[in-house]
């Protein structure tokens, strides 16, 4: 089964609004969680990540919330802009001495309309 799941394949948000992207996972052992952004015909790039010892991390307009008991994490993008339009991939993994065998979700296509 899919260990990391993004239940919403797409999301549309008005410019200036808050985009909320969700991700659920199954493995209790996951201790590293990340969000990657991917433009069409481009490679994924890391946006933000957290370890399991924190439940929130902010970086500019981005905030990751981690709910370990619910096996859920989310990415909030405030003041959404048209250039935020992309596919967002969540990923989770177990840190093994620095390397993490990352399992990715299916992706959510975010469209920010102006």
């Amino acid at each position, binding site marked *: 089964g899919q260990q990391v799941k993004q239940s919403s394949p797409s999301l549309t948000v008005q410019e200036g609004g808050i985009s909320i992207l969700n991700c659920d996972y199954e493995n209790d052992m996951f201790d590293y969680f990340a969000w990657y952004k991917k433009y069409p015909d481009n490679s994924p790039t890391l946006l933000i990540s957290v370890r399991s010892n924190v439940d929130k991390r902010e970086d500019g307009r981005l905030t990751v919330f981690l709910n370990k008991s619910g096996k859920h994490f989310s990415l909030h993008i405030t003041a959404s802009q048209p250039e935020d339009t992309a596919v967002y991939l969540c990923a989770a*993994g177990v840190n093994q*001495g620095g*390397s993490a065998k990352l399992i*990715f979700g299916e*992706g959510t296509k975010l469209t920010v309309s102006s």
Partner: protein
Amino acid sequence: DMKVTQMPRYLIKRMGENVLLECGQDMSHETMYWYRQDPGLGLQLIYISYDVDSNSEGDIPKGYRVSRKKREHFSLILDSAKTNQTSVYFCASSPGTGRGAETLYFGSGTRLTVL
């Protein structure tokens, strides 16, 4: 400039042919990965390599093998390609140590079509 380079960018092969996908990185990263991306399935891990000749199966290794003889180079081999191996293949590397150890740096991908 930190870079993961994949060759070729596009490739068309016939069923039963052998396929070699090459990946290089100039960051001396210990860990390298091969993923494939299919619509509705996200990125699926094929193989992970923790260093030279230290390779481990990912979630979908069947039909693939890998080779890592130098730290900066990681190859994906398809012996006798099948049509269901048509996909976009991404190589990635991560530092493995220090700040940002788990961050994956991806190549630009190889779009493989098996006819």
